[in-house]
């Protein structure tokens, strides 16, 4: 569970290849006649957005060891910041992204500061409460003039610049991809450096880290802030791509989706965030088919909801693959590379 992968040769090339592959995907749109291609692009956007949100959460849980069940609240904050700026300020979509990041970073700092005194179960409890309280807070009448109350805010989907020749969904895909690449790169560098070592040292042994002169309070608060900021950007992107925000999209269940993505992809794994993001969207989209299949196979009387699948999956992963898909792959690779040596012995 350390960041050894950052130093291994070959990872850089692999990452470059993966991102290049993701960048080439929209081009299929120019050669395919498939009418649902735009919908696939939309799915791609969602996957990237979830990947960014999971990245934010992973920085906090996986690398810093602080458990948050409240990241849906920061996601909501990012989304509403963008929505309000676009709707009332007439801001262009791209200009709202840094603002959303800063607002969420500050909110994260503000919540991270009290979180300093809390550990493990207690932090989970406090953030759980935050996630439950958020939708009600967004519906609050006094701010309904800005937030649109229960109904939320409807936005215009931005048009792609004409010279690109891209469809709206292809363009938004690239927007998400660009943001994802920048953020992954930033986090990668953060973790590789001195601060990254400090952040992980706090996770592994808080007391030892503090005796080594690491300012625990500062690093934990800032980690909380950055994590919230990243998740806030994901929220902002979701407001732009969905072109709609409403309080009930940001419930505890959204936080649970992030957690699913985190655990499935792999705790403390950067590539795992992408896997996790893709996984969340895939399950949401195929929930109906999975449900139908299970109904047919096991002759069930009821539909099987996505949340039951998520829940069972979370449990199963805790038993068999506690370090997620990325961790599982790493173990298989380690087994494979040492196989020759074992046989030689």
């Amino acid at each position: 569970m350390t960041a050894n992968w950052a130093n291994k040769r070959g990872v850089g090339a692999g990452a470059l290849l993966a991102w290049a592959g993701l960048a080439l995907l929209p081009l299929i749109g120019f050669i395919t006649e498939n009418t649902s291609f735009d919908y696939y692009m939309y799915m791609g956007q969602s996957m990237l957005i979830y990947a960014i949100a999971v990245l934010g959460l992973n920085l906090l849980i996986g690398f810093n060891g602080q458990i948050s069940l409240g990241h849906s609240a920061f996601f909501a904050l990012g989304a509403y910041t963008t929505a309000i700026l676009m709707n009332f300020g007439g801001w262009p979509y791209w200009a709202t992204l840094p603002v959303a990041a800063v607002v969420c970073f500050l909110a994260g700092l503000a919540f991270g500061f009290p979180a300093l005194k809390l550990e493990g179960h207690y932090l989970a409890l406090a953030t759980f409460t935050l996630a439950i309280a958020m939708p009600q807070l967004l519906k609050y009448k006094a701010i309904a003039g800005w937030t649109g109350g229960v109904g939320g805010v409807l936005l215009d989907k931005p048009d792609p610049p004409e010279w690109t020749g891209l469809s709206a969904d292809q363009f938004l895909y690239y927007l998400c991809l660009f943001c994802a690449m920048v953020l992954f790169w930033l986090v990668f560098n953060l973790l590789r450096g001195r601060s990254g070592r400090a952040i992980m040292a706090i996770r592994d042994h808080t007391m030892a880290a503090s005796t080594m002169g690491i300012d625990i309070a500062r690093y934990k608060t800032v980690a909380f802030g950055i994590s919230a900021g990243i998740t806030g950007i994901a929220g902002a992107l979701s407001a732009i791509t969905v072109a709609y925000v409403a309080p009930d999209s940001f419930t505890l269940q959204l936080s649970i989706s992030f957690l699913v993505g985190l655990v499935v992809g792999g705790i403390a794994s950067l590539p795992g965030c992408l896997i996790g993001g893709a996984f969340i969207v895939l399950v949401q989209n195929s929930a109906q088919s999975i449900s139908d299949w299970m109904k047919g196979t096991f002759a069930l009387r009821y539909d099987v909801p996505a949340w039951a699948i998520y829940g069972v999956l979370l449990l199963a992963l805790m038993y068999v693959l506690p370090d997620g898909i990325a961790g599982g792959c790493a173990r298989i690779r380690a087994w494979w590379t040492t196989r020759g040596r074992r046989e030689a012995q």
Partner: protein
Amino acid sequence: MDFFIQQIASGLTSGAIYACVALGLVMIYVSTDHINFAQGEMAMFATYLAWAMINAGVPYWIAFGLTIAVAFFGGLFIQRVILKPLEHAPVLALVVCFIALLSIFNAIAGMIWSYTIKQFPSPFPSHDLFGNGLVSVQQLGVVGVTLVMLGLLTVFFRFTTLGLAMRAAAQNPASARLMGVRVAWMLALGWGLAASIGAIAGMLVAPIVFLDPNMMNGILVYGFASALVGGIGNPMGAVAGGFIVGVLENLVGSYVIGNELKLSFALVVVVGVLLLKPAGLFGRVIVRRV
């Protein structure tokens, strides 16, 4: 003045329910140091079972008792089968596990009974106690059931050897084992009791808020707040905390912030207590193990 008394009465009624939820949480916390995020959904699920039984023609109080029994074995089962293998797992794995249980219970309840809200009968008439519109029989009934349950639990833990063994197992597991106490089973028993207490909370609250799969979300948050106010390791404190939070919530709701921000009030209480007085009003100081 009448309005004030009404608020206190309804505060005590919610307080009784929060006390039950908090007590369930404390029961599990004391014996395992875990905070059970699925406590609310377990209670909700049990309440649906009661609803199904009552709909099938089972008399209310029989359904009430049966539900408590079923919840007990459900809790026992969850501890023995699902949580036992994760005994030595890190905190994150346990939190994930509780969240998974929460999702599963919520989803299954929605799958079987749908997400439309349902009426849940109350065994108590809703008319006034004194005919002056201040306190209803229903409110008195809720508080009464809670107090009876508390009395029974106190007797159990104080005067039976099984209750004593459970307390010993929670306090010093290694030493309890050397007295022949089967500690693993005591933990499971604690889960069973917590599930039963939760079921009572669910059945008491359902006539007030209506039954639906998300019914316990807000109430669980208030349960957390109550447990923390009372000191999370202290059962009696949890009950006192429940009543305090219930009354405060109603007063703050009607006089200060309005009903729309009640959940935010719970958030403020939770964060406030954790920051300012992590041991709660009646709890012992939480010692950090190194």
